[in-house]
């Protein structure tokens, strides 16, 4: 019995050769055995290997089996089509090349590939059907893995020899490009899927390296635009077919989209961060400025206080000396004293301005219409600015009234006008405007509260200020004027006053064109009053004899004040501290008609003293004297109810006048 597949005698020689060659190569490839089927004899023979493979006794297999055994071990799902294929063979098909599953005796399933030929007799009837089986389980698994890797990973493979018109591709490759799945595709068709203007995916020029590339494609099945990446290698020529390009493609549309969105976000983020940083910087700048001003304010306030005490004594004594000197005095002495007094008063003015800047000056605000106020100042303004300057005003007809200390406001306006004059070189146009303005919710870092304000502005056509000057304009002692021409305190006073009044001030300036300073003053609920501040004129004296209790820790100032009051006929008690004062108050005799106390004292402050004194005597009139009234001052620089203040340094005249005024108003003790 022939166990080797061999054609019967008489068959074509070349065919037999082919058969032998097939046998050899298949054996080399791992054939598991061969079969021979004697068709007319209805007998099937397996070689020893194939018999063992199927768990059949080789002796039995060599002796011949029923033909049906060919199909016994074939997997149930595959058996029908193998049956049909065998049927085809028997009817004339020449080539039998099928792969299917076989169940081994150990129960394991193997994939096999059958290569078979059918030989016909002269009557064209099938005579012999022979072939070999190759175990392709391993190969099948690898192919399965490759297939799953591709479909699960969304990757498609291609193999291409440059110069040829077609490439070998996987099903997934076709699907990724929206092409009909086929094992072989035309290069032109593949490159045709790429969007116009892009490089081809399959390069027909030979290349040494297949670089990573990205392509925009238009799917032929849907028209959809996608992004595809290609990666691969060039395998060198080994069989004369030329270097092969082997690689994969995968879809990166989502990646590109995300990248795009990320880039956009980054750009936005960058500009948002920039914006944010800028904002922060601005806020920090404002904070720094504010803190600087605050620190300066503290400093100047402290200095002013001490200075004021000294000045009070100086002024008081010099004034006293002058009076004592009287009419028959040596003219030189008279003049010397006059000069001393004038300078002292100027020094006092200076400390006032410093206090104004440090926002610690006492204010007496009242409702006023700024339009009318400016109108009342017109003469003063004209005199100060000179003939060659034109002054124009523009006030809203329904202008709200504001709550401010009118003295300070006049002073501020005058200050601004003088600055305008100097900036214009004594000729040009000054415009003073006032209008109503409502401020919406305050932004971050703004100190100004939302609400109604009157915007009062002074505009000139002078040389203007560059930005770095504007930034420092409100600092005390900062001035661009020459030495001797201006103290540099003007704008800082305006700043202090406006801020203390609950408003704000801002400068806008264009170098070469002019400057506008705008004050925002809080609107007053009350209607504007008509009168100006009542002046204390003349030389009022108390009309009756009364007792005044002076409380002051500085002995000189106390002595000065006490002397002055005694001179006008008042009875004066002195105390160096709050405790002493209370002891005196508690004494029934003499009855005290007025309490004159310093505000800032060691131990009990003036305020505390007054609180305690008022517990004993609720109606006791109180006059504060102070060079540093920070504590006494309640909100917005206003004095609390029932608080009357005499600012140091004061002249004797002022002291006496105030005391007289208060005694007059009060009921007799």
């Amino acid at each position, binding site marked *: 019995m022939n166990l080797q597949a061999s054609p019967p005698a008489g068959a074509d020689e070349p065919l037999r050769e082919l058969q032998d060659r097939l046998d050899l190569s298949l054996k080399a490839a791992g054939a598991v055995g061969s079969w021979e089927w004697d068709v007319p004899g209805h007998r099937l023979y397996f070689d020893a290997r194939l018999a063992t493979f199927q768990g059949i006794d080789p002796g039995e297999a060599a002796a011949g089996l029923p033909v049906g055994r060919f199909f016994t071990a074939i997997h149930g799902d595959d058996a029908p089509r193998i049956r049909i294929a065998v049927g085809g063979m028997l009817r004339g098909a020449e080539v039998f090349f099928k792969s299917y599953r076989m169940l081994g005796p150990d129960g394991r399933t193997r994939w096999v590939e059958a290569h078979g030929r059918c030989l016909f007799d002269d009557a064209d009837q099938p005579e012999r059907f022979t072939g070999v089986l190759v175990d392709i389980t391993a190969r099948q698994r690898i192919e399965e893995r490759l297939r799953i890797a591709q479909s699960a990973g969304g990757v498609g493979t291609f193999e291409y020899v440059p110069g040829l018109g077609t490439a070998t591709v996987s099903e997934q490759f076709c699907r990724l490009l929206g092409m009909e799945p086929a094992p072989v*595709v*035309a290069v032109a068709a593949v490159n045709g899927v790429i969007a116009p203007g892009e490089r081809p995916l399959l390069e027909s020029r030979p290349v040494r390296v297949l670089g990573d590339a990205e392509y925009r494609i238009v799917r032929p099945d849907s028209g959809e635009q996608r992004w595809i990446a290609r990666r691969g290698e060039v395998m060198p020529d080994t069989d004369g077919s030329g270097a092969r390009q082997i690689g994969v493609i995968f879809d990166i549309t989502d990646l590109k989209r995300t990248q795009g969105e990320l880039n956009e976000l980054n750009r936005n983020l960058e500009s948002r961060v920039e914006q944010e940083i800028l904002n922060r910087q601005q806020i920090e700048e404002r904070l720094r400025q504010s803190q600087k001003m605050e620190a300066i304010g503290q400093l100047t306030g402290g200095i002013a206080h001490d200075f004021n005490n000294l000045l009070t004594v100086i002024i008081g004594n010099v004034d006293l000396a002058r009076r004592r000197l009287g009419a028959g005095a040596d003219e030189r002495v008279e003049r010397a004293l006059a000069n001393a007094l004038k300078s002292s008063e100027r020094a006092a003015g200076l400390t006032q301005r410093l206090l104004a800047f440090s926002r610690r000056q006492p204010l007496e605000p009242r409702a006023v219409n700024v339009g009318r106020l400016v109108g009342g100042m017109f003469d003063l303004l004209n005199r100060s600015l000179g003939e060659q300057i034109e002054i124009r005003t523009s006030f809203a007809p329904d202008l709200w009234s504001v709550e401010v200390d009118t003295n300070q406001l006049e002073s501020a306006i005058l200050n601004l006008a003088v600055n305008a004059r100097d900036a214009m070189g004594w000729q040009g146009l000054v415009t003073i405007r006032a209008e109503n303005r409502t401020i919406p919710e305050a932004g971050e870092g703004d100190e100004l509260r939302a609400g109604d304000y009157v915007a009062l502005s002074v505009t000139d056509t002078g040389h203007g200020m560059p930005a770095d000057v504007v930034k420092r304009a409100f600092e005390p002692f900062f001035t661009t004027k020459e030495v001797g021409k201006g103290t540099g305190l003007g704008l800082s006073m305006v700043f202090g006053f406006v801020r203390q009044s609950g408003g704000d001030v801002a400068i806008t300036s264009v170098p070469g064109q002019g400057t506008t300073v705008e004050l925002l003053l809080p609107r007053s609920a009350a209607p504007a009053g008509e009168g100006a501040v009542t002046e204390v004129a003349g030389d009022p004296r108390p009309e009756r004899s009364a007792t005044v209790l002076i409380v002051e820790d500085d002995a000189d100032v106390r002595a000065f004040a006490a002397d002055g009051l005694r001179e006008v006929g008042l009875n004066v008690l002195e105390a160096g501290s709050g405790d002493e004062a209370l002891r005196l108050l508690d004494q029934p005799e003499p009855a005290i008609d007025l309490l004159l106390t310093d505000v800032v004292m060691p131990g009990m402050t003036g305020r505390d003293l007054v609180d305690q004194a008022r517990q004993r005597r609720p109606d006791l009139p109180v006059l504060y004297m102070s060079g540093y009234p920070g504590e006494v001052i309640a909100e917005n620089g206003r004095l609390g109810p029932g608080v009357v203040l005499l600012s140091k340094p004061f002249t004797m005249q002022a002291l006496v006048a105030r005391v007289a005024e208060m005694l007059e108003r009060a009921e007799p003790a």
Partner: protein
Amino acid sequence: MSAIDTIELSELEKDALTEVVNIGVSRAALSLRRMIGEHVLLSVPSVEVLSRQRAATLLVQQGGDQLVAIKQSFTGAFSGGAMLIFPQARSLELVRAVTGPEMSHDEIVEMEQEALTETGNVILNSCLATMANMLKRPLTMSIPHLVKGDGSDLLDQVDDEGDVGLVLFLYITFTVRERDLRGYIAMMMNMSSLLALKELLNAFIDETMSEEL
């Protein structure tokens, strides 16, 4: 008129059709062998049923827009058209394979039309005749001729009997003088023809499954 607008062949029916055509091309290979005097191996690994559009797309994607085909129409139990298609780049190879290495390039170009038509005739005739035999029904075939064009052009040229029709798409491997050439056989049939074919295939299956071995 059938309500279904698409027809499907089951896996087994596809297998049966593949085998029937396999038989057909085997017969053709025999004839060609005698014609050429060389070994020729023809096989049909698989078959697909596609709409005309998909078949056209597939053809374009397979061989670009330059195809050459030998076409023939048939009538009988089922009717339609059949084409043997090769990419134009391959057709000269086919001719060379068929005519042998002794011919010069010019001679081959001259012979191209004739060689292709003759080869195509043998193959298609054999396929269709075998199908008729196996399915035990007679078929009448027209004279084949050569056409060139792209996928749509080729498919458009086949007459069918009015309705949309489907394409039986078969890959065919043509091995001669140790070269492999790939081509396609496309059979265009209308709905009723396909249904008839289905019936016949099932008869073939039954016969095969039950025959005594």
